[in-house]
C-alpha cells in the first residue's frame, strides 16, 4: 500500500517516537518517577480492559476494580505462599480473572444500562468487606493483606547502563503493556470486536443477525477481567503489597475516570487517561485529601457535557482542523 493516508503515517511516526522516548525514560528520571511511569502503564492496561467492556461493547461496569483486586491478590498469594516467580503469576491471574469475569458475566447478561451499572456498583462497594472476611483470610491475609518481596533485576548492567529493580520492572511493564495493547488492537479489528460494537449500538439487530448475545457479553466481561486482572497483577508486583482498602469503590471510579478522559472506544486514549488519573493526586494532594476526588467528579460531569469522546477524540478533531490549513 503506497498511499497510506497522511493521518495514518503521522500516527505511525508518533507511535515510533513515543516508543523511543519510553525506552529511554528510566535513565532520564529518578527511580520514584520510574515507579510512577510503571503505574501509568499498569493503569493504561486496566483502562483498556474497561474500555473493551464499556466503550466497545457498551456494557457499563462500575465494578472493574474487583477484577483488578483479584489479579493483584492472585499474584500476591502465589508469590507469597508458593514462591512462584512474579512473571509467572501473570498468566495465572489472567486465567483466574477470565473465569471470574465469565462467571460474573453470566447473570450480568440479562442486565442493561442502569441496572448493570447498579449491579457492578454493588460489587465494587461490597468487595473490601469480602476481602477482609475472616473465613477467607487464608487466601487474602484478611485486614492486613499480603506483603511480597519486590523482585530484583536479573542483570546488573545492560549495554553498559546500570539496571535496578525499578527500571527492570518498568521494562517488564512496558513489554506487558505493548503485548496487551497489541492483543486489544487485534481483538477490535477482528470478528469479536465487530460483534462488540454491534451489541453496543444495536443489540436487537445484532441478535437478529445471529450474534449470540449472552455468549459475547460474557466474553466481553471475561476479556475485560483478563486485562484488568493482569493490570492488577502488575500493580501488586510494583507496590509489593495488597490490602483490602486499596481496592474499594474509588478504584473502580478511578478507572472510569481514566476511560472517560482518554475516550470511550479509544485505545490510545487509555494512556492519556492513565496519566491523568495518576497525575492529579500528585498535583493536588497538598490542597486536601479530598481534592483529587472532587476533581475527578467535576471532570466526569464536564466531559459528558463538552467532550464525551474524550481526549483522544479531541486530538483527532483538532488535528483534522489543523490539517485543513495546509
Amino acid at each position: 500500500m503506497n498511499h497510506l493516508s497522511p493521518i495514518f503515517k503521522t500516527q505511525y511516526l508518533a507511535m515510533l517516537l513515543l516508543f523511543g522516548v519510553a525506552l529511554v525514560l528510566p535513565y532520564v528520571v529518578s527511580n520514584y518517577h520510574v515507579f510512577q511511569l510503571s503505574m501509568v502503564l499498569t493503569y493504561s492496561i486496566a483502562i483498556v480492559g474497561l474500555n473493551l467492556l464499556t466503550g466497545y461493547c457498551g456494557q457499563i461496569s462500575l465494578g472493574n476494580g474487583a477484577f483488578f483486586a483479584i489479579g493483584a491478590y492472585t499474584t500476591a498469594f502465589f508469590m507469597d505462599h508458593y514462591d512462584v516467580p512474579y512473571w509467572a503469576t501473570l498468566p495465572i491471574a489472567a486465567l483466574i480473572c477470565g473465569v471470574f469475569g465469565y462467571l460474573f458475566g453470566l447473570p450480568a447478561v440479562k442486565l442493561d444500562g442502569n441496572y448493570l451499572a447498579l449491579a457492578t456498583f454493588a460489587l465494587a462497594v461490597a468487595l473490601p468487606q469480602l476481602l477482609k472476611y475472616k473465613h477467607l483470610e487464608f487466601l487474602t491475609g484478611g485486614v492486613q493483606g499480603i506483603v511480597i518481596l519486590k523482585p530484583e533485576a536479573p542483570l546488573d548492567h545492560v549495554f553498559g547502563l546500570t539496571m535496578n529493580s525499578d527500571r527492570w520492572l518498568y521494562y517488564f511493564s512496558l513489554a506487558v503493556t505493548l503485548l496487551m495493547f497489541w492483543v486489544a488492537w487485534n481483538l477490535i479489528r477482528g470478528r469479536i470486536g465487530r460483534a462488540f460494537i454491534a451489541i453496543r449500538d444495536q443489540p436487537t439487530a445484532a441478535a437478529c443477525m445471529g450474534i449470540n448475545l449472552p455468549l459475547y457479553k460474557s466474553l466481553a466481561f471475561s476479556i475485560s477481567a483478563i486485562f484488568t486482572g493482569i493490570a492488577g497483577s502488575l500493580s501488586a508486583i510494583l507496590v509489593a503489597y495488597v490490602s483490602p482498602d486499596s481496592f474499594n469503590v474509588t478504584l473502580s471510579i478511578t478507572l472510569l475516570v481514566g476511560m472517560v478522559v482518554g475516550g470511550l472506544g479509544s485505545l490510545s486514549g487509555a494512556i492519556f487517561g492513565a496519566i491523568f488519573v495518576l497525575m492529579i493526586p500528585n498535583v493536588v494532594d497538598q490542597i486536601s485529601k479530598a481534592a483529587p476526588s472532587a476533581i475527578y467528579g467535576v471532570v466526569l460531569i464536564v466531559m459528558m457535557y463538552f467532550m464525551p469522546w474524550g481526549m483522544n477524540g479531541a486530538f483527532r478533531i483538532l488535528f483534522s482542523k489543523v490539517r485543513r490549513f495546509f
Partner: protein
Amino acid sequence: METFIHQIMAGIATGGIYAALALALVMIYQSTHHINFAQGEIAMFATYLAWLLIQAGVPYWLAFFCTIAIAFLLGVMIQRLVIRPVEKAPVLNVVVVFIGLMITINSLAGWFFGFTIKSFPSPFPSHPPFGSSYVSSHELGSISVTLALLITLFLFFRYTSLGLAMRAAAQNPESSRLVGIRVGWMLALGWGLAAGIGAVAGMMVAPVVFLDPNMMSGVLLYAFAAALLGGIDSPGGAVIGGMVVGVLENLLGAYVIGTELKLTVAMLLIITVLVIRPSGFFGKVIVSRV
C-alpha cells in the same frame, strides 16, 4: 426472646430509613428512569449542614426543618443545573454524570468538614421509653419520624393538585404538557423532595453510625436493594421493601452471618433481584418492544 424482639424493633427502625431512601430513589426513577447514585451523598451533605446549624446554637427541631428546606433547594438546583443538560443523553453518559456528582459531593463534604468522625445529636432521650428493653428511644423516635414523613408524602401525592401533577408528569410527560403541566419543573420538584427525604434519613441515621463523609455508602446499598425488591417503579413497594430489608438485615446479622458480610449480602440481594425479577414484587413488568 427479648433480644429477638429488640432485633425486630431495631430492624423496623433501620427499615424506616431504608424505606425513606428507597422511596426517594423510586421517585426519581419513576419520573426520569435514572438511578440516582448520588442520593446517599446528598443526604450525607445535608446532615453535615444540619450539624453546622446545631453547632451554631440553633435548636434541634428548627435546624431539622431548615435542613430539609435547604436540601430541597439543593435538590432542585442540582436537577436544573447538572442533570437537565444530560437528560436525553445515552445511558452511559447519564450514569457517568451521576457518578461524577456522587464523588464530587462526597469530596466536597470531606474538604469542607474534614474526615474526622463527628457525633450527631439525637433529639430523643437516651434512656429507653417506658423503661422498655425492646426498643431504644432513638429507635422509636426514628420510626415515628419516618412514619410521619411517609404519611405526609402519601397525603401530598394523593390529595393535592401539585402531587397529582407530579405523578402525571412522571407517568406521561407528553400528555402532561397537553394539560399545561410544566414537566421540567415537576422533575426539579421531584429531586427537591428526594433531597429532603434524604436529609431526614441522614439525620436519623447519623446519631447511630456517626457523621463522616462515607456514612451513607452502606445505607445507600441497602436502599437500592430495598427499592429493587419492592419494585423500582413502585413507591408502595419501596416502603415495604425497605422494611423487609431492615428487619432481615438485623435478624441475619444477629443470628446467621454476623456483621462482617453485610455489604456482600446487600450486593447478592441486588444482583439476585435484578436477574430473577427485575421488576421486584410490586413493580410493573416491562416488555421491551423491538
